[in-house]
C-alpha cells in the first residue's frame, strides 16, 4: 500500500513534468474554448435544439480531455514503460503489478478531472454553466473516463513499441475528436459521416456528458451508458489478456 501511494505521488509529479500533457490539458483546451466561442458566438440556434452552440462545447472539450489522456498518457506511457524495461524492473521488487496500473489510473483520472474543472471554471464568466446536477455530471465523467482509460490500457497492451503506439494513437485521437461531435457539432456533418460517428466510442462520451451538462438527466441517456459500459468491459477484458510486462 505504501508502495502504491508513493508511486501515485511520483507519477503525479512525472505527469506535471511532461509539459506537453500539462500544456494540452490545462492551457490548450481552455484556449480552444475561447476560440470556438469567438467563432460561434452565443446565439441560440434552431439546429442545436435551441441550445447555444458554445453551451455544447464545454462537455465536448471535457470529452477531448478524457480521450487525449486515455490514448496518449495511459496508452503511450504503458508502452514506453514496457519498452524501457521499467515494468520489468518493478517485477523484481515486492510491488504488486496491480499497483502500477492502479496508480496510473488514479493519477490520470485526477488530472483529467482537474482539466475538466479548469474548463468549467473558465467557461463560467461567459455564462456557460452546468445546468444539470453536479452528481450526474461526476457520474457521467467517471463512466466516460473509465471506459476510455480501459481503451488506453488496450492500446498500451497491443503494440510492441512506443513509436508504433504513438502513430496509432495520433490516428485514433484525431479521427475521434472530429467525428464524435466533441470538436465539431455532429449536426454539421453529412448523414454519411453522422453514421460513421455512431461507430466512434467517443461520440457516446460526448452525448453522455452533454446530457448531464444540460440537465437532461442520466435516465434519458441510458443508450450512452449501455454502450460505454459494454465498451469498458470489452476493453478491460481484452487488455487484461493481452497485457505483457516485457
Amino acid at each position: 500500500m505504501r508502495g502504491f501511494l508513493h508511486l501515485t505521488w511520483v507519477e503525479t509529479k512525472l505527469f506535471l513534468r511532461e509539459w506537453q500533457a500539462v500544456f494540452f490539458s490545462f492551457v490548450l483546451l481552455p484556449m480552444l474554448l475561447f476560440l470556438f466561442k469567438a467563432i460561434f458566438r452565443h446565439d441560440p440556434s434552431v439546429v442545436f435544439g435551441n441550445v447555444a452552440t458554445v453551451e455544447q462545447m464545454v462537455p465536448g472539450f471535457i470529452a477531448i480531455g478524457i480521450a487525449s489522456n486515455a490514448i496518449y498518457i495511459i496508452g503511450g506511457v504503458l508502452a514506453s514503460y514496457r519498452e524501457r524495461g521499467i515494468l520489468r524492473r518493478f517485477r523484481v521488487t515486492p510491488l504488486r503489478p496491480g499497483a502500477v496500473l492502479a496508480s496510473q489510473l488514479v493519477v490520470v483520472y485526477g488530472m483529467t478531472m482537474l482539466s475538466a474543472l479548469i474548463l468549467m471554471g473558465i467557461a463560467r464568466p461567459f455564462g456557460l454553466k452546468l445546468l444539470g446536477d453536479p452528481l450526474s455530471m461526476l457520474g457521467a465523467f467517471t463512466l466516460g473516463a473509465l471506459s476510455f482509460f480501459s481503451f488506453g490500457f488496450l492500446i498500451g497492451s497491443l503494440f510492441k513499441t512506443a513509436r508504433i503506439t504513438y502513430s496509432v494513437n495520433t490516428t485514433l485521437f484525431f479521427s475521434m475528436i472530429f467525428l464524435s461531435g466533441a470538436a465539431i457539432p455532429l449536426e454539421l456533418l453529412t448523414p454519411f459521416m453522422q453514421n460513421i460517428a455512431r461507430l466512434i466510442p467517443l461520440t457516446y462520451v460526448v452525448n453522455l456528458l452533454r446530457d448531464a451538462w444540460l440537465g437532461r438527466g442520466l435516465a434519458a441517456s441510458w443508450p450512452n451508458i449501455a454502450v460505454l459500459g459494454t465498451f469498458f468491459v470489452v476493453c478491460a477484458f481484452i487488455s487484461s489478456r493481452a497485457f505483457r510486462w516485457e
Partner: protein
Amino acid sequence: MNAISVQGLIKDYSDLRAVDGISFDVERGEIFGMLGPNGAGKTTTIECIEGLRRPDGGTIRVLGLDPQRQGYELRERIGVQLQATSLYERIRVREALKLFASFYRTRSPWADAWQRLVEPLGLAEKINSYYYALSGGQKQRLHIALALVHDPEIIFLDELTTGLDPQARRAMWQLIKEIRNRGKTIFLTTHYMEEAEHLCDRVAILDRGRILALDSPSRLIASLGGENRILFTLQGSCDVDFFRRIPHVSRVERIDSQLALYSSQSSQVLLELIKRADSNGWSLQDVHVQRATLEDVFLTLTGRALRE
C-alpha cells in the same frame, strides 16, 4: 543453509536449450561469478534465480524460498540490477531512491541520509539530478544503488561493469567487495575475465548452457599446471611444429597474428626460442610472457577464446 541452491536447471527458448541442466550452490557471504561469452546462458540463469523467468526443469532455492511460488517474500530480501533497464526520464535520483525504498516492508537504513548510500557510488553530487541528465556510468551506478536501498541479503548484478571505463570499473569492484565484507552475498555475471579473476571468490565458467568448471579463480588457473604463456609475433611464414619441438613447450597456439607457447619453464623456453630464432635469422617481435589467466582456462576448456 546456502544462499542459493540450483539443481538441474533447464531453460528452453523455442528450439534452443539456453540452460542445459546446471547445478551449483552459492554460499552466504561470497562473491559468486558466472563467467562466459555472450549467449552462454548467464542472463537466463540469473533471471531464473530472480524469478523473472520460469525454468523448464530443475529446482531453485534462494534463501530456502522458491522464486516462482514464494516470489513476493523472496523479493523483500534480494536486490537486483538488471542488464538492460531504464527509469523514468524525469525522475530525480533522490526520488527514485525513495520510490524504490517504499516498495519494501523494512525501512531503508539510508532513509534519513540518502547521501550515505550514493556517496560511495560517486553520485552524491547528482542526488537532485534528473535521470535523463546522468551519464551512462552514473545511470548504471544508480541502478546499483536502487538494488541496495532495502539492504538486501543477496545482490544480483548482471554485467555490472559493461559500459564503464577501466577506472570506474575498478572503483565498482572495490565497492562490491565492501558490500560483501558487510556480510552480503553477491551473485554476478560477467564476460570480463579480469572482473571474474579480481572480484569473485568463486567462478562458474559457463558455455552453451553448461558449467564447464567451478572453483576459485586461483585454483582454476592452477589447474592448468602453473603454466605461463610466451607470446610473440614472427615476421614471415613459420611452422608451428617447429616450436612444439622446443623442450618444455607443452602446447602451441596461434592467436590472430601471434603465436603462444605454453610452458611451466618459461624462462628456459624463452632462452631457447631466442637462440633458435637467431640462428634461423627470424625476427621476433612484441615478445612477452604472461601468467595464465581465466582466459586460458576458458580456452583450454572450450578451444575458443572468451572474446569471440
